[in-house]
Every structure is written in structure tokens, then in C-alpha cells.
């Protein structure tokens, strides 16, 4: 029988060395890895003003990522009576015929990207507020900007989809379980955010290197005016619009001869605009992308409806300055040409204008008309008409209804293709059925005023209900 010499001193020594190495492996240090070099931990992002400002840029960047803000103008113009859907490409075909389905990704993209932006705004509001490394003044500024962006995003969501979940934290579990909040609650949140922003944002654009691409206090005021108009709080709408109009040091309408320059980046008419500048050039605005580009190749995919083209009165300077045309197969097609900067390889000469002074005049006109202050209302309309080279409306004997009709017409022409204004106007004034029912008798349904909640969204958060008609 061979002797087992396992228990020799040498073996005990080796075994204890080995056992020691086992104990070491139990130590968590062995599992320590380098932090992800191409990512920054959230706690580090808000550790200083410089780092946090990158998160702020990220929020704006998310806001203008191709699907959200930039597509509003085109998608909503199709849903309304502005763009011709005959040759539109998918997913926009269904916007044009008002036959969106819950599985179309076109509408879903709006939903997804606005909520993504809202998350980033929430993250800034929460993390900056609790940051120990950031200076107080910067914190206040960043939180105010984030609140403006959050309000703007909810404004578009509520106008596109109706009641929507009101996500105001970064807690994913909470947010995933949220049901749709009432429209009233959503607007209350928007107003509260805007009031907060208005109080804390800088009065002018000096903080932003004089670029009108981030919200100042007037931007919050202007959006408040719009929100009050939409919620039929006409007195407040008039007050807020007046505040903006009276800020003459910053804002004034361009003259008729300069009307082609309204959308240039330093335009005095611009209150808040989107700046798509990159390190080497700029992204194209939606109009450049969809209209001007298509027109270069005589593509009928992105053209204006004849209904819109015919709505221009003779001699309207806006038709000349803000539309273009081409001939294909003996037909003349018009396209939107408010933006003309097609050279993506240089710094932008135009910003995509979200809020501008002309709209504030029309907001005030409508608020005044609704309060039966027709003379003042007509005066505001005429400011816009005169600037476009049209004759002034006579305010004598004008009825409230006529005045509102004139305002609708003026909004249609002044704001065409701009950020869904026409689509929202038709809906909030209950004119959609009449106007679109006549224009698209085969496909129009009253329930189409609200876009469908994305199917995937309802599948992932089953507490969500679908809008009628989908």
C-alpha cells in the first residue's frame, strides 16, 4: 500500500498559498473594472457647471432630433390642409389622409422623442437642483430652461394626442405606470413650468451670445400667451401677448421689403428659434429638407395644396417671399420656401423659428376678438396685413364671427407650415370637420383630430387607453 503523503509540510504550504488566493478572489476588488470610458456617470455630469452644460445641450439636441420638433411642421401640415399628400412618402401618407393607425411609426416618433426630451429636462431639473458642485445662478438658469423645454414638449404632446401621461420625474418605474392625465392637468403643469421659467430666465439674449436659440423670459411669456389662447383664457392671453409686443427693445416686425429675412437667425421678429448648428455646418431645417430639396428635383412629394396656394390674396408679399414653384408635366407646383439655407456645410444663416412676434399680434387679435374688443383686434390683424402689402380690414361694422374668420385666414397665411399652427387652429376652433371634411371627403373622420397613441406604447404600458377611432 502506497503511503499517502498528501499531509506533508510542503503540501500544506502550497495548499495554504492556494487557499489564500481563493480568499483573494472572494474580494470584490478583483471584479473592479474601469468605468465606461465613453460614458460619464450621471453623478459626474452634474458635478460642475461645465459638465452640466453639456447635458443642457443634450436636451436641446434631443428636442430637435430628426423626429420631434423638426417633423411637426410637415406632419401637421399634411394632417391639415397645407401640404399635398398625393405623392407623400410613408409614414407621412397616413398623416395626409388622416388615416393614421396606432402602428404607424410617424405619430409614434413624435410621442417617443418628446418624452425623451422631457426625461432629459426632468433629469436636469432633479440633478441640477440637488447638485453640490454647480453654482446657484447656473442651477437656476438650467432648471428654468429645462422647464421651458418641458412645457414646450407637453404643449405639442397634448395638442397632438390629447390627454397624455404627465411625467415630471426621472423615476422610470413611476413613469412606466402612469396613466393619461387630463388635458386640464397637463396644461396646469405647462403653465406652472412657464411661469417659473418666465420668472427666472434672463430678460434678453446676452447670456446666449445674443443668439435667439435658447429661451429668455419673453419666450416663456410668448408661449404662455399661446397656451392661454389655446385654453381660452383670453384675458391672460392678451396680457401676455401684449407684454411681448411691448418689449420693443428686443422685438419688432420686419418691413415688407425685408419680409424674406424673417427667418434669418438674427431676425428681430424671432422670439425663440432652433439652432441646428453642428461643429462643421448645420442640419437642414424641416422645410429645407422636405420642400426645397424636393423642389430641386421637381419631386411632387413635398408640395403645397392648391387650397393653401389659392388662399393667398393677390399681391401678398408672403407668397412671393415664402413660397417657390416649379413646373412638372405641364403642372405648376408650389413648395414652402420660408427657409432657403440649403448649404449644410457652413454655419447656418437661418434658425428654425418656433415663436415669433407676428404670431403674438395674431394671438392678441384673437384674444381681443373673443373678448369682443373688435377694434383692437382688427388693429392687430392689420399690423400683419399691412406688413404683407395687403389692404387693411375695415373695422367698422365687423362682426365677431367675421373678425375671427379673418384671424383664421391671417393665421393660415402668416404661419403656414410653421410648427403645426394651422392643424392646431382647426382643432381648437372646432373647424376641422368643416374644413377637412370638405377637402378630404373620402377619408376624413372627426376622431382624426387626435393622433393615435402608439400601439407599442399601449402594449408596454397597458394602463394607457387609446384615443377614439383607433
Amino acid at each position, binding site marked *: 500500500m502506497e503511503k499517502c503523503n498528501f499531509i*506533508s509540510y510542503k503540501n500544506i504550504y502550497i495548499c495554504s498559498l492556494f487557499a489564500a488566493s481563493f480568499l483573494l478572489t472572494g474580494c470584490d476588488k478583483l471584479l473592479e473594472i474601469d468605468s465606461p470610458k465613453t460614458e460619464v456617470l450621471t453623478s459626474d455630469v452634474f458635478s460642475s457647471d461645465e459638465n452640466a452644460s453639456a447635458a443642457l445641450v443634450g436636451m436641446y439636441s434631443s428636442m430637435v432630433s430628426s423626429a420631434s420638433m423638426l417633423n411637426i411642421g410637415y406632419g401637421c401640415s399634411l394632417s391639415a390642409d397645407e401640404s399635398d399628400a398625393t405623392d407623400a412618402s410613408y409614414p407621412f401618407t397616413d398623416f395626409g389622409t388622416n388615416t393614421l393607425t396606432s402602428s404607424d411609426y410617424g405619430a409614434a416618433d413624435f410621442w417617443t422623442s418628446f418624452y425623451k426630451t422631457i426625461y*432629459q429636462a426632468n433629469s436636469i431639473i432633479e440633478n441640477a437642483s440637488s447638485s453640490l458642485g454647480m453654482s446657484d445662478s447656473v442651477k437656476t438658469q438650467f432648471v428654468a430652461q429645462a422647464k421651458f423645454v418641458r412645457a414646450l414638449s407637453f404643449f405639442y404632446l397634448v395638442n397632438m394626442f390629447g390627454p397624455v401621461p404627465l411625467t415630471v420625474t426621472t423615476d422610470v418605474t413611476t413613469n412606466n405606470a402612469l396613466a393619461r392625465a387630463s388635458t386640464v392637468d397637463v396644461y396646469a403643469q405647462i403653465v406652472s413650468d412657464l411661469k417659473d421659467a418666465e420668472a427666472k430666465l434672463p430678460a434678453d439674449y446676452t447670456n446666449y451670445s445674443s443668439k435667439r436659440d435658447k429661451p429668455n423670459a419673453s419666450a416663456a411669456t410668448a408661449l404662455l400667451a399661446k397656451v392661454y389662447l389655446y385654453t381660452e383664457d383670453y384675458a391672460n392671453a392678451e396680457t401676455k401677448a401684449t407684454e411681448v409686443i411691448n418689449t420693443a427693445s428686443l422685438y419688432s416686425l420686419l418691413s415688407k421689403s425685408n419680409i424674406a429675412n424673417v427667418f434669418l437667425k438674427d431676425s428681430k421678429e424671432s422670439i425663440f428659434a432652433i439652432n441646428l448648428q453642428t461643429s462643421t455646418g448645420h442640419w437642414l431645417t424641416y422645410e429645407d429638407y422636405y420642400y426645397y430639396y424636393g423642389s430641386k428635383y421637381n419631386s411632387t412629394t413635398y408640395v403645397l395644396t392648391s387650397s393653401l396656394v389659392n388662399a393667398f390674396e393677390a399681391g401678398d408679399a408672403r407668397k412671393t417671399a415664402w413660397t417657390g414653384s416649379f413646373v412638372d408635366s405641364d403642372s405648376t407646383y408650389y413648395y414652402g420656401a420660408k427657409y432657403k439655407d440649403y448649404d449644410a456645410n457652413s454655419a447656418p444663416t437661418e434658425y428654425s423659428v418656433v415663436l415669433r412676434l407676428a404670431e403674438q399680434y395674431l394671438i392678441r387679435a384673437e384674444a381681443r376678438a373673443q373678448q369682443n374688443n373688435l377694434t383692437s383686434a382688427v388693429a392687430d390683424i392689420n399690423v400683419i396685413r399691412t406688413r404683407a402689402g395687403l389692404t387693411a380690414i375695415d373695422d367698422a361694422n365687423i362682426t365677431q364671427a367675421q373678425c375671427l374668420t379673418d384671424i383664421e385666414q391671417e393665421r393660415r397665411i402668416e404661419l403656414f407650415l410653421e410648427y403645426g399652427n394651422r392643424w392646431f387652429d382647426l382643432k381648437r376652433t372646432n373647424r376641422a370637420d368643416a374644413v377637412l371634411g370638405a377637402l378630404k371627403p373620402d377619408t376624413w373622420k372627426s376622431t382624426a383630430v387626435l393622433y393615435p397613441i402608439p400601439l407599442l406604447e399601449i402594449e408596454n404600458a397597458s394602463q394607457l387607453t387609446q384615443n377614439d377611432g383607433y
Partner: protein
Amino acid sequence: MTSHIHRPILEIKNGKKIFYPCFKLIAMSLLLFFLQQTVNAQPGKSISLHYKHGRLAEVLKSIKSQSGYVFITGDIDLKKYYIDIQVDRVSVGQALASCLYDHGLEFTIVDKTIVIRKANDKSSKKLENASGIAYELRGVVHNKEDDSPLVGASVMIKGKYNGTSVKSDGSFTLPGVVASDVVVISFIGYENLEIPLAGRSNIGIIMLAEKANKLDEVQVLAYGITTSNRYATGSSAKITSEDISKQPVGNVMQALQGKVAGLIINQSSGLPGSDITVEIRGQNSLDASSSNTNVLKNGPLYIVDGIAFTGEAINQQAASKSASGTYFYIQGPNGSGNGSPLATINPNDIESIEILKDASATALYGSRGANGVILIKTKKGRIGKPVLSVSFNSGINVVNSSMEALSLDDYLALRTEAFANDNKTPTTTNAPDLTLWSQTEGQDFKKLLIGSPAKSYTANVSVSGGGKGSTFMLSGNYSRNSSVFDDNRSSDSYGFHFSSGYTSPDEKLKATLSIMMGAGISNLANASFYQYAYSLPPNFPLYNSDGSLYWWSKSIPVISNPLAALNSSYQNNMNSLNTSINLSYAISPKLKFSINGGYNKIQSNQNVLNPSTSSNSESTNLASSRTAIYVESNAKNVVVEPQLNYGTTLWGGGLTALLGTTYQETVNEQPFYIIASDFSSDLYLSDLSMAGSYVLHNGYSAYKYVSVFGNVNYILKDRYIFNGNFRRDGSSKFGPNNLYANFGSVGLAWIFTNEPFLAGKPEWFSFGKIRSSYGVVGSDNVQNYAYLSSYSGASSSYYSGSTGLSPSRVANPDYKWATSKKLEVAVDLGFFKDRLLANFSWFRNRTGNQLLEYPLATQTGFSSYTANLDALVQNTGLEITLTSTNIKNINFSWSTSANVSFPQNKLVAFSGLKSSSYASTYVIGRPTTSLYLLHYTGTDENGLPTYQDVDKDGTITTSIGDNTGVGDLVYNGKAYPDVYGGLSNTLKYKNLQLDFSARFTFGARDLGILASLSNAPGTLSNYPAAVVKAMREIGVEKLFTTSTYSSDFRLFQQSDAMLQKISYGRLTNVSLSYDLPQKLTKRMKLSSLRVYAQGQNLFKFTLSGKTYAGIDPETGTTAVPPLMVIVGGLQFSF
């Protein structure tokens, strides 16, 4: 009397003594040695003899019938001897000793032959050589099968490294031996024999037996621990270099297709270097279709020479990711990665590949092996005269798919019909094919674009040898594959392999080193030519009248000119370096320390240069159309694995124990990803400083894995086997609270044919074993850092000229290890002296606590986060493997192996499924790869298809009614087959060998190419003829439309109207080789010369009666199908 430790790393000496008083000491030791040899080599031969004055002849006959041994008795008159014996369940050696020694006879056992001679003959010879004096040994070594000389076999003195090899006449002479030496005779493919000289100067003719019995083939379990199939408690399968060498494949995994039960291997494309997906026993994770390129959910663990090897496309592994979830990497030709690192391993350098399947077999790799383990062992040198061998072959590769596009006439008819359906008029804008282009002359784009046979060349050279305790092997290889596209591009690879081994004279210290370098260079055109081949209108004019390339971009869809892609250049350089060392030291005969260490790095450099001529000059400005993309990706692995092995006899059984740790560190890095554009000239594309603008990305992730584990294996009485594992795994992929978890497995086996009560079983029933294993394995298959909340930058994250940071993920620090519970029950049977072996395995793997990217409602700001889901996926299956030596004689042999698998998969439980985001994908009780489709019911009065309104809500909704309550999708079968398997045959006639193997798959459901077509038939795009034909057959021509979006067609694509059952067989390989007779090779001064012809993927046959409407069921809907390869070659060695 002996214990059997079947783990060669443990040299365990027999602990018990046997005493036979009437014999001389030397005869005794000789006998003892042979008894050990006998029992070790042929365990479990239980002999029972009951004779009173029986004739020796009769007794030997009985031993022969009980054991299968044959006797050589020479001139001994067996009738002269009468035997008295009463023994039960003793070994052959014991039985013979009892019979013979009293009569002055002795015996030697050589393999299964027992030579009996008179004891006196040898004891006198022995006296020739007194101990201590060196003398010369002579002998002859033959092949036991046909008694031919075994040229090249090595004869070594055990423990001394004196050795020689057998000459062409079979004889050898070995000087310098002493009386007490033991010689070891070995030859590849044959059982080793150890013969104590006991003073003999001539050991006569030694017969070496081929390793014929698969049961005793060595199986490597893990960390060099070996067992044989005979004693294994787990499930594994092995493919050897011989199987691999018959198949002209670029990626060695292709050689496994159809060869192993439970293993599904698919290539993503037939192009060289393309990715391979490997799945062992089904999909265990719900997230199999994850779009996360950095995550692999169902792939096995690859171990090359003991070191973890990244099996996935390196460019995807390391890809950086934008905040919006886009990964930045160059896809390569066909969009299929084109970067399988396994393709950098030369198939010719591989000695064997083993596939470990169940919990018992994979236990030692722990969590990393939760989806099975593939062990790749490279070739090593052998002791003996250096051998130089050279082989080369060349051949052609052809696209072999029957899918055709419509002919010009049929296409034009389809377009006209679509315009009529739409009530539209063709104009020069919307229908150039009907108005501008030729109405009479069409082109066969399939032939033009992918119809060229590609040529391939392969060459391998290797030198190997060894002596005095060390061995070495050096090899180099080169191969070249040209393109099936109409161009001069190719994919080349070359590599170098060095391995070396050392054993100290006392055999206590052993060291091996292996270094393998591989490089692959591909410049294949980076375009989906097959897609062009079936989508380009047949009358599309490729050229303008001035000879420039023609484009069409005036309507949607725009048509790109495929020839422009040839103006782009693409290059993928892959380099891999694989090093491993293994050191072991026997501290005592029972205790051994060893350490495995290794480092590997795989690097991929890709670039794409697009000159202005590669895109439509009409639609873009020249400068911005010039782009250059450069990307580097690499993966590094470091593994260190120290361990202790202990072996002893315990309670009459053999016990081995192992204690080990693993440390693995993996870093995936993408140092840069550059898209440069706006070059002012095509000439500057390679000069980045001339770029007008650029976008940059990089990526990095690290992973660490540590583990402590123990394994115990105990074999009692040659028939009861126990195997147990325990381990504690740690992974850096988890948050601080969940870094570690404990797992383990237990395996049991019972060789019932070794039971005494079965001693009287029929002779043809030679082996029977029942085994079972159960284990709990963890899985950490999630992305690195997924538990951290972080922000990251992205190239598109710009605002106002500044770059921004966006949240990259939602933090979930709480997720834990996913767990798989694996159960297996199997029966192994051997018949006719194990010439027919059968294995039946049933397994059940249940993976719960699934670790997934759990989809969130995007109102949260994210589309998913990593979380554990309370869902249980079950894979069960029956696997049957048969190997049979049908005929075997000197001139002719025929062997067959076959395997069949019957897999089943289902989602057993999923709490909260209906309210979860998976409600639209899975149904409890159904397979996880099910097809849920609308049920097509015919056409309405407008000729449009109608579908069954399952939920009777008046509308057709494409969601699963079972879960959501609303929806018309119904279960329509599953995407995995009912049955799949393979069959291989080897026929040898003299020097001629024919091999052929086929595989088949039956019963999977697939929509074919229909599901992936973006538009209905009728747009400005050609269409697969089979789809149009089938649509016409069922009468849905009204779906033909010129619109690029047709919701009617979208519904049709989701219906069962065109559902297919994929049932096909493929003749995967035919190989014919001829070894020139020795007479001739000798004259040519070669030791061997073989000529061969091989064919791969020779043809596919449909088993369901309908041809598959798609390019190929294996490679999917757009990729180049597996190529048909035919090569001829030559192989010789000196």
C-alpha cells in the same frame, strides 16, 4: 482488486498487492504489470469460471466467450492440461493466473490477444541481460487489423526519452535499454502499449490496435481533465481533425454542421469570413432577437487551448453606441458582420473540437458556459522523427440558389397590372421602366452580379516532431477566395501556429505553450448584390449612352446603380493572436498543481472609401458624396486559472477532486470610428487631413469574471460513477449587491453491464450505461455597465454648435444572475463489441429569472432597461446518436454515424405577461420563436385578401388576441425545426476513401422572402418570381400596387397565406481521397502522398415538396446563400 482512475493526469499506482507464492519474483512483477495493464485497458471484464478437472481448451473457450479475448497458444497442447477452478467475477488476468500458473504456464496480454507460453522459455532468456547492463532491443510493430507494418510508430523508453521509430518493414532497433526498462509503443490513432522488457532483447511482434471504440476516446471536460465516454456522467461530442480535413470550409464551425445532435449552426452569408451563429440545445433567453449588437444571448462559450475566445464579430462587440441606441460599426458585405474571429483560426491547425452540452459537462466553466461550451484544441507535436507535411488545394465556389427574379416580360406585365389596379397612368416620372427603358431587352442581373464562380486556393505546411521530453509543431497556412461578384476582389487569410511541450525526466513537471497568429484580409465589395439581383428592374439600363453609370432618383423607390458599389473600396483586416501556456507539477503522486494562463487579442481594421463615382452625382453634391470610414475594433482576453488536482483510492473506488479558480478579464475597445467627408477630390480619400468634415466615435467596455470551484469525481467498482461540482461565480456585470452567486451540479452514471448479475448477458450486448445530471448554472449575459446610470455623447448630439451629452441608459443596480436549471437523462449502449454505439439523451433546460432588456413605455424617456423577468423558458429535447462500424476487414471498411434531434421549446411561465411589453410577442405555453399570423380566408369582392376576425371586433388587428383580448394574430407554428440531424458515412477500400455527409431539418415555419420585402409587387422594383407566382395562384393580384406603402400588403405579409414549412436536406460534404501505395511513395522519398477531391454544399433537396420561396433557409432573405464549393488537392509528408 484495482481501482480505475480514468483521468490520465493522475498517475495512480495500484495500492494492493497480490501474492502468488509459487512464482519467481520477476515473473511476478511482469505478471502484476500485465494484470494492471489488462484491467486498465479493458475494465469491467468480469469472468466467472466453475470447473472441476476441466480441459484447458474448454476453460479458455469460456474465457474467450465471456471476455472477447483471443488466445495464441503456439505449440502448447491444450488437451494435456486439466484445470480446477472456482471463481466469480474476477478479471481475465486473475482467472488466467489461477488456471495457468500451477501448470508452469504464463501469459501476456497484448490488447485483446493473450499469448500463452511455457514459463521456462522466458526465464532463461531473461538471464541473457543482467540488470544494469545496456543492450540493444529489437522488435516488430504491426497493425493489429491487417497485420501490416506500422511505419512511423514510436518506441520510447518510459521516463528516459530514448526512442526510435518503426521502419518501413515494421521493425525497430533501440540501443541503450536496460533489463528493467519499460518501452512505450505509440502511434496516432492507436492504443498505446507499455511493455516491461524484463531483460528481453527481442520483444517479438507487437500488435497495436486502432482506437476503434468511440467509448474510450478521450474526452476533455475542462482544464485538461479528461474522461472517456465510457465513464462520463455528462453529454459531450467530439469532432476530430480528420473530420475537419474532409471539408473545404473557411470557418471551422461550418465543419460541425449536421455532425452533432443538439447543435444548430447557421452561417449568416455564404461569403468568406461571415458570421456564424451557433446554438446548443435551443434558445434559453427570451431576448434572442435582441438588436443590441454588444450582447449575445444564446451563444456558447468558446475555449481555444484553455483560453476563452471571443466568438462574435469583433467589430460589433466593441461598437460604440449613440444615445439613441445606434451602434457604429461597418457591417461589411451583405450586412453580415464579415468578422467572425473564428475564421482566423486555420481549420488545419485544429486537433479536435468538443461540444459540451449538459450541466455536468459544462459545470467547470460555470456561468460563462450556460449556453454550452465549445472546446477547440490545436495540434501539438509528437515525439518521434520530424515530419514535414504539405498540402494544397484549389477549387471553385458557386452561388447555388434557385431563387429567380421575374423575367422582363413578366415584370412589365406586373407593372402594367399594378398601374391598372391603382387607376394610375404610367408617366416618364413614375414609370421609366414602362416608358423610357427598353421594352424588349432585359438583363439577368443574378448572372451578372453573382454568377461568377469564385476561385479558392489553400496551402498548409507543417513540421512537427520531438524527443528527449520535448515536442514541437510549426505550421503555416495561406488561403485565398475570390469573389462571386463580377470583380477581382478576394478574401485572403494566412496564419502561423507554434506549439511546444516539455516533460521533465521524472515526469513531474509538464509545460505546454501554444502561439497562434491569424490574419484575414477581405476586400470584397461592400454591397448586397443578391438584393440587387432580384430587385433591379430587368430593363434597368446600367449605363448612359456616354458610358457613365445610369441612375434613377426621380421617383420612389430610387434605384441605385449596383455597379457604382464597385467603385467603392472596402477592406477588412483581421488579426488574431492566441497564446496559452499550461504548467503542471506533480507535488506527489496524488496531488498535482497546475496553472493555465493565456492572452488573446483579436483586432479588426475596416475601412470603406466611397469616391464620388460610387453615388449618384445628380442627387448629391460631389464633395459631400466623397466619404471615408475608418474603424478599428479589438477584443482582449486574459485568463489565469490555477488549480489543484487530487486523486486517491477510497473505499475501493477511484476518487479525483479538483479545486480551482478562474480569473478572466475581457476588454472590448473601439479606439476610433471616423466618418470623414467633403473631400475635394476622390484622390484624397485616404488622406484624412483633406477631409472637409468628420464625425468621430469611440467605444470601450471592460468585463471581469472570477470564480472558485470544486469538482469531485468518484468511480466505484467500475460501474457506479458520481460527479459533483460546486462554484461561486463573480461578474463585473452586476451591481455591488449582486456580484457573486453560487451554482452547482451533480452527475450520476451506472454502467449496468458491469453488474455481476448481468454477467450472463448475450455476447452482442457489450455495453450499457444509464446516466443523469442536474445542475443550476448562472448567466451574466447582459451588457457591461448596464447597472450604472450614465450620460454619453453622440455625434448627432449638437445644438447651437456645441456637443451635448444625453442619458445613455436607466440605472437598475438591482438585477441579478439569470439561472438555468439543466436536467439530463441518457442511456449509452454498445453492441457487437461496441461496433455499434447508441446514445439516447433527453434533456430539459429551464431558464428563469431572465435577464433582459425589458421594454419600457417610451413615456419613461427610454425604450428599455435591464431587468430580471419572472419568465421561465424551457427547452427539452431528445437526441439520438448512432455510430456504427458496419463492415471492417483488411481491404474494405464502412462506418456510419447518424444523429437526430427532436427539440421542443416553450414559454412555461411568465408572470404578468399580459400587462408586460412582451404581450405582443409571446404566449404562455407556446414556443418562444412562434409565428403569430393572420389567418387568410380568401378575397373579397374587390379581390383584396380577407382574414379571419378572430376576436370578432369587426376589424383586423395585428396583435395577439390570446394576450391582449383584442387581436387577430393566431399561432402558426414555430421557427425551429421539429427534427433535424445529420448522417455521415466513411467507406474505405484499400487506399481509397469516400466520405459523404448530409444533414436535414424538418418542420420549421417561415414566411420566406415575403416577410422581408419592403414593398408590394408592382413598384419600380423587380420581385422574386416565386412570390409573384404564388400570389397569382391564390388570386390576390389586386395587391399589386405601385405605391411604396400599401397597408393591404402589410397585412398580407403578416398572414399565413404564404406560410412555408422549411423541410430540406443538404448534401453537405463529399470527399474522395486516395493514398498512394507505400511502394510508390517510397520511390518518391515521401512517407505519404494523398490526392483528394472534396465538395461542400453540393445540393439542397426540398423535403416538403414545395421549393423554398427565398434565397436559402439558412442564410435568410438577403444574404448570399452557402456557396457550393468544389476543390481538388494534394497532401504529402516526408
